């Protein structure tokens, strides 16, 4: 927008100035002495454009090879140049005056109190990414069948996220981020065979607003990524209420494809070792001690809400993060510690015979499962010039309440119950932006210990390349090899058959 403005400004000035110039030129010549002799600078001046451009053959338009007395007479004299210089000075003054007037007008039109003025009441921005994914999985692996995208190349609409950032009055701000998707079209609703009748999710309908009776449409879902309102008057104590990303480590808050270095998310985010988002309240703030910024965030929430928006056990989730950051301009270092604890319960509501109820039928709740979790994380983020280093380590403990374990996998371990868990993850990512073509290659390794039906440990190694075309557009590509093994328990199965290779590529735009 500023560039457009500047361009318009320039064009707006140049056009009248050129016009003034064209109109005033004869005046300048009229004032010059008719018999002014040619001067060396005039002779050295490049041939006038009129002579270089083919024009109808008139005596004036014929340019001789060497300056003749007639041609020399046409060239500006020293007096002409002095007059022109004076005119240029006048023009310059006029331009400055116009600029000053424009500045005054813009200042008058722009409230200058602060960034919460009404001029900034609502901002809309966001990001998008589109591209292609390919996954290679051994066909004997269960992963090749339960994940629909395995062993196929699929073009994808990744994220289409819009932010609505409102600050209608000073010190109060609301932010809603929504993601538009075409999900869950095509997802498996029910497996076939022993599981019953195979069924795929279909979002087809006829377009009731269309101009044809049989115009089809396929609807998609809108995801509310976050929505909160905050009061931010005090630097050391800000208050946020609503649905927010859990302040935990680096990745969860970086959140968006343009901001994240790696294209693929780490498994501890994908497997939600801590709640990605929570509904509740958060206080946060920071203070400075010398060169160091010391910050904190503390949350009080419903805890995990992956089952329902309701809180089924009156238990609250508690969490927090503290960090220390030092930014010297050339080196930016952040160290952080995060923690979350909460109890998650799912309940089932049954219709039962109840003699005490009015018609003998009542409702009864029973717990499906209930567990308590503790998640702790440590993170480090270091930017040294064009080099970016990120690392996080997360440890999680999940303990079921006695008698409240859910059944284990009916397919892979029928009759079992879900065990208590320890999960640990650590990753290291190093990226370096090369001095040309916006190339930023990176290496990324993630190790996780997490008992699953596949294995109890995995290692992911990635090689990626981001090409920053400009500050808004990147092309991100990543190749990943995920390897599974049993680090904790012996397994009679060859879990390496589940190893996965993936290639992702996305064109990413922030706006």
């Amino acid at each position, binding site marked *: 927008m*500023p560039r457009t403005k*500047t361009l318009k400004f*320039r064009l707006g*000035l*140049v056009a009248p*100035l*050129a016009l003034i*110039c064209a109109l005033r*030129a*004869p005046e*300048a*010549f009229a004032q010059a002495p008719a018999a002014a002799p040619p001067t060396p600078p005039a002779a050295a001046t490049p041939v*006038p*454009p*009129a*002579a270089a451009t083919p024009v109808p053959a008139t005596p*004036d*338009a014929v340019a001789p090879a060497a300056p003749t007395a007639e041609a020399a007479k*046409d*060239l*500006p004299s020293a007096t002409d140049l002095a007059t*022109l210089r004076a*005119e*240029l000075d006048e023009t*310059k003054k006029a*331009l400055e005056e116009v*600029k*000053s007037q424009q*500045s005054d007008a*813009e*200042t008058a039109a722009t409230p*200058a109190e*602060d*960034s919460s003025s009404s001029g*900034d009441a609502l*901002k809309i921005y966001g*990001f998008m990414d589109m591209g292609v994914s390919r996954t290679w999985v051994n066909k004997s692996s269960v992963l090749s069948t339960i994940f629909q995208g395995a062993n196929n190349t699929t073009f994808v609409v990744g994220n289409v996220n819009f*932010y609505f950032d409102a*600050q209608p009055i000073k010190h109060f*701000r609301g*932010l809603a*981020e929504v993601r538009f998707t075409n999900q869950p079209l095509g997802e498996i609703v029910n497996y076939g065979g022993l599981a019953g009748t195979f069924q795929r999710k279909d979002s087809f309908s006829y377009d009731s607003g269309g101009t044809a009776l049989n115009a089809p449409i396929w609807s998609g879902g809108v995801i509310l990524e976050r929505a909160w309102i905050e009061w*931010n008057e*005090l*630097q050391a104590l800000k208050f946020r209420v609503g649905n927010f990303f859990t302040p935990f480590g680096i990745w969860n*808050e*970086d*959140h968006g494809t*343009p*901001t994240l270095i790696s294209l693929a998310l780490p498994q501890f985010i994908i497997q939600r070792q801590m709640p990605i988002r929570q509904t509740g309240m958060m206080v946060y703030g*920071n203070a*400075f001690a010398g*060169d160091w*910024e010391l910050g904190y965030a503390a949350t009080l929430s419903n805890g995990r809400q992956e089952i329902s928006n309701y809180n089924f056990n009156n238990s609250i989730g508690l969490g927090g993060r503290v960090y220390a950051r030092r*930014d*010297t*301009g*050339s080196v930016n270092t952040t160290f952080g510690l995060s923690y979350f604890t909460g109890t998650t319960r799912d309940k089932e509501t049954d219709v039962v015979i109840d003699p005490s109820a009015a018609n003998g039928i009542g409702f009864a709740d029973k717990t499906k499962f209930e567990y308590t979790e503790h998640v702790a994380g440590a993170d480090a983020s270091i930017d040294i010039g064009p080099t970016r280093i990120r690392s996080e380590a997360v440890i999680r403990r999940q303990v079921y309440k006695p008698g409240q374990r859910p059944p284990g996998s009916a397919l892979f371990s029928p009759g079992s119950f879900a065990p208590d868990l320890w999960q640990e993850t650590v990753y290291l990512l190093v990226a370096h932006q090369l001095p040309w073509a916006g190339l930023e290659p990176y290496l990324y390794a993630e190790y996780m210990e997490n008992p699953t039906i596949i294995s109890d440990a995995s290692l992911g190694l990635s090689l990626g390349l981001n090409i920053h075309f400009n*500050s*808004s557009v990147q092309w991100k590509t990543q190749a990943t090899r995920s390897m599974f093994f049993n680090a904790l328990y012996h397994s009679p199965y060859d879990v390496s058959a589940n190893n996965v290779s993936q290639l992702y590529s996305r064109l990413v735009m922030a706006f």
Partner: protein
Amino acid sequence: MNTRRAFVSALLLSATLGLCTRSSEAGGDAIVVIVNKANPANSLSAGDLRPIFQTTKTSWSSGGEATPFNLADDNPLRQDFDQAVLGLDPDRASRYWKDRKIRGGARAPKQLPSTGAVLRAVATNEGGVGYIKASEANASVKVVARIAGGKVSGP
């Protein structure tokens, strides 16, 4: 006469264009950082200014709200200021603020259209801080730092 008129017109037009181009550059004039006259600070370092212009620090050490005013991204003064204070070239500065928005972080400083507007905003806002050309500073504001050759120094 046609030749002469065309030549002079072209000369003046190119001079005008050149003038316009030069007018959008810092032109070698030093940049000064200005605060409201009521602000007790007499000198600010790059380390003091950085968190204020990153909007991670929203109050002055002496108390009171800090309100930074920026120029537009493509203004050469802004680019020189970002490089000297934030350590960011124009492309990285633009990415910095885009990343901040995507994270949902605090808003960037308010942008004003001209140094004249910055001067006025700082003069009328107690917590205001901004930057202008040294030649434009006047008694309505207090100069607390000077930026020349990519370095921030005392006033």
